[in-house]
């Protein structure tokens, strides 16, 4: 340790000494009481052991806001904590670093009180300064790749963060902001004492380069249950218990139970499952397609457990039509609601749910996960699968069948269009085949165009498709998905001609359908309301409008599935929810 660092640490130590009496009292009062949701526990765990999990690719960086990389996030979510998080059972917000919060009557000021006594893994106390640093310097910094400025802005004005005292801060918005708490859940809180020196505001490029994957793991301090120990490129990330971890189980024991958490880097999903079956992995992500095989193994006596349950976050596939496709005849057709209704009648959801998802999917919502607070039941608008009714609607549009059985467009050309889908995704490929087959029976020719899953979004937002099978993940609050569902949003790919011009923020209202204008207005209003019931009324109307006007045809909402080794404790399903966290699981004796 060099001299300067020694002096700095001594100074911090003195600071802590002054604060110590207060902290001590609270620490004692808290001792013994659980500070994580009790519903995570089936039983009190046993300390020790190693949890080994797969990671689908090499993490790009340990700097959370500098990369958009779910593999890095998977690792870092063990190291850093959020202010609050959704409860796995109730889907309601529960405090993590935040102890409590209150929203003012005018819904413009949110006051958050932080848990006391939390320390970073290097011993520095965690305070509101860390929160302010994270939100004002990093998370809302549009020069950083993974910034979250969009959710930290309401009606075009950024949220303001103010420190009240060391453990309290305020979030102030110029207009009421109904999704303010949700917006706070997105950012893990980073240590100001380690990162402020790199000046993210003044030098975003330089800041993006710190905490690269070759950084000394000791530098990466967190408040989470684990801290980084080592990283072997393309092979393994090792984390160990954070000695200062603040989490306690219902009996007051320090969490996590596991001493070590290892991520093995295994790219091929089939090999992940092979490694899981070989006993080298404790858990493995699976899809509905793999569920029956593993369930059979479980029933057959293998030492594994396979669970299913409902969730918010799975991505329901939908069928989108390009309203701006170059071919004028197709463009007119795709913009015609009767045509889209006909296509919806031809979507055999029941068969897709049974055959493609092995029953592990439900009828979809329109932009909201079924069974959650914001969901409005639109199932009656989905209609029953009926090729006759589909054919009837197509007939009514004047798309008659020729002697070869193919329907003809008004110009006499055969009614055929491309259907772009991810050929490397098993469910997508199967859905494509089912649709193609059913549509052939009513004289519509679907030309399948398989592309890589990784290029699906670029293809969609680039407008390089006629019709496409896409999926966007659901989120707990519709506000967080307005870029998709609000016309003119950058992910609202099916109607690109209403996108704002470069440099403008206003979409082209004159190009919108009346119902699109309604939806746009709903999102604008709901964003600036504090009353959740009022917001829900608006979002209900949006879901109804979507179900009636079919901007896209929703197909099915996959259920969450998970597979874990039988030795894992506190890995279970309850009330149709899969429940586990890396800090509450343990190795059974």
């Amino acid at each position, binding site marked *: 340790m060099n001299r300067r660092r020694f002096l700095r640490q001594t100074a911090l130590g003195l600071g802590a000494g002054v604060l110590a009496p207060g902290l001590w009292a609270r620490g004692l009062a808290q001792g013994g009481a659980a500070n994580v949701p009790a519903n995570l526990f089936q039983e009190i765990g046993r300390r020790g052991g190693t949890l*080994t999990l797969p990671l689908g*690719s*090499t993490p*790009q*960086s340990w*700097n959370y806001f*500098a*990369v*958009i*990389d779910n593999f890095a996030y998977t690792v870092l979510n063990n190291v850093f904590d959020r202010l609050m998080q959704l409860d796995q059972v109730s889907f309601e917000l529960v405090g993590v670093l935040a102890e409590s919060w209150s929203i003012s009557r005018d819904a413009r000021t949110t006051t958050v009180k932080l848990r006391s006594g939390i320390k970073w893994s290097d011993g520095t106390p965690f305070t509101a300064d860390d929160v302010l640093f994270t939100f004002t310097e990093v998370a809302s910094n*549009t*020069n*950083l*790749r*993974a*910034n*979250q*400025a*969009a*959710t930290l802005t309401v009606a075009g004005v950024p949220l303001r963060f103010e420190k009240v005292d060391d453990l309290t801060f305020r979030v102030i918005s110029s207009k009421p902001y109904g999704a303010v708490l949700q917006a706070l859940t997105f950012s893990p809180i980073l240590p100001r004492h380690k990162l402020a020196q790199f000046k993210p505001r003044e030098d*975003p*490029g330089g800041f*993006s*380069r710190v905490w*690269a*994957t*070759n950084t000394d793991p000791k530098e990466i301090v967190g408040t989470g249950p684990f801290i980084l120990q*080592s990283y*072997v*490129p*393309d*092979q*393994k990330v*090792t984390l160990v218990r954070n000695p200062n971890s603040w989490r306690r189980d219902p009996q007051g024991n320090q969490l996590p139970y596991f001493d070590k958490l*290892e991520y*093995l*880097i*295994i*790219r*091929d999903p*089939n*090999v992940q499952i*092979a*490694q899981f*079956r*070989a006993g*080298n992995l404790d858990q493995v992500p699976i899809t509905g397609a793999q569920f029956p095989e593993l369930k059979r193994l479980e029933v057959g006596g293998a030492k594994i457990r396979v669970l299913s349950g409902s969730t918010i976050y799975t991505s329901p596939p939908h069928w989108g039509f390009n309203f701006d496709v170059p071919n004028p005849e197709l463009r007119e057709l795709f913009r015609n609601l009767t045509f889209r209704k006909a296509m919806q009648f031809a979507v055999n959801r029941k068969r897709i749910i049974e055959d493609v998802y092995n029953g592990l999917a439900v009828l979809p919502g329109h932009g909201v996960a079924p069974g959650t607070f914001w969901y409005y039941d639109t199932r009656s608008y989905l209609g029953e699968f009926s090729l006759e009714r589909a054919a009837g609607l197509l007939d009514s549009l004047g798309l008659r069948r020729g002697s070869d059985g193919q329907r003809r467009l008004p110009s006499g050309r055969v009614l055929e269009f491309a259907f772009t889908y991810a050929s490397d995704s098993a469910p997508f490929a199967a859905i494509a085949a089912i649709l193609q087959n059913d549509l052939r029976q009513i004289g519509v020719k679907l030309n399948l165009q398989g592309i*890589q899953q*990784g*290029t699906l*979004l*670029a293809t969609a*937002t*680039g407008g390089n498709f006629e019709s496409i099978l896409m999926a*966007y993940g659901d989120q707990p609050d519709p506000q*967080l*998905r307005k870029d*998709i569902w609000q016309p003119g949003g*950058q*992910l609202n790919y099916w109607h690109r001609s209403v996108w704002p011009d470069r440099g403008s923020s206003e979409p082209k209202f004159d190009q919108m359908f009346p119902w699109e204008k309604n939806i746009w207005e709903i999102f604008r209003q709901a964003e600036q309301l504090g009353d959740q019931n009022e917001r829900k009324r608006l979002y209900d109307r949006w879901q109804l409008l979507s179900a009636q006007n079919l901007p896209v045809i929703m197909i099915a909402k996959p259920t969450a599935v998970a597979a874990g080794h039988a030795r894992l404790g506190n890995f279970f399903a309850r009330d149709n929810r899969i429940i586990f966290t890396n800090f509450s699981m343990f190795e059974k004796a």
Partner: protein
Amino acid sequence: MGVYLLRRVLVAIPTLWLISVLVFAVIQLQPGGFLENLLEDPRVSRETIENIRRQYLLDQPVWVQYLHWLGGIVRGDFGYSFLNSRPVSELIWERMGWTVFLAFLTILVTWVIAIPLGIYTALNRYGPSSTALNFVGYFGLATPDFLVALLLIYWVLSTGGTNVGGLFSPQYIDAPWSWAKFQDMLAHLWIPLIVIGLDGTATIMRQMRANLLDVLSQDYIRTARAKGLAERVVLWKHAVRNAINPLISLAGLQLPTLISSTIIASIVLSLPTIGPFLYDSLLNKDQYVVMALLMLSALLLMVGNLLADVLLAWVDPRIRYE
């Protein structure tokens, strides 16, 4: 020889430069770009994209970007990986060790197995063992390596084994070297060796067999036999030495496969080599990483060819480059 070497090296420089222009142009021709891929994340705004475009000079015309890259190369700077926010050279270096180790081991094993088998099958053309070996050879040529990998993994699993994929069991990956770790590596290594090497073994075996059969029917072999040389001498001194020449040229082409040939096998077998890294970079259009790896590949091809030519001159006294 010295003049010859110098000439080859001098010719290599403009060739590499031309390749770099071509590769850069091809990368630019790809639809979309690194930043467009970023939009996939709902949190990334157009404003952020524009800011980062400026940070990385991606708002400049293509030729400016190219000159900037070329200037870096001259200074020994291979640029930054957009994806990892780290210098490209560091990232390649991290993966070089295992890549080179696996590639050389595979090439070595391939040759050590394939050459004798080629000779054997040439000498016993119609024997049952040759037919069996030929079948294995055809199988190796005809089956994609990832399929072989998956079949082997399935077979290991169904026989109760646990060493599926990777080079080590989890607990040994970051452990210091020890006898146990070495044994663990050997227990894992055979799968990648078979998967990566099978195709090459079959090719070389077939080549060696064909060459040897060709040489064995030459007049000088008959002469050698007629003058009463021992069959051992005829075979090893006259036939095999001539039959192996074309294979040496072939070996020169194997160097660049260090980088590109094992992509899929490495992904399937979770091997820490450059292959998957190149794959990720291509998918994400991480252009400076792609540039560096493709240039490295081109360089290896040239070096490999040069080495093969030198080796050929050394093995075959008839070849002179003066």
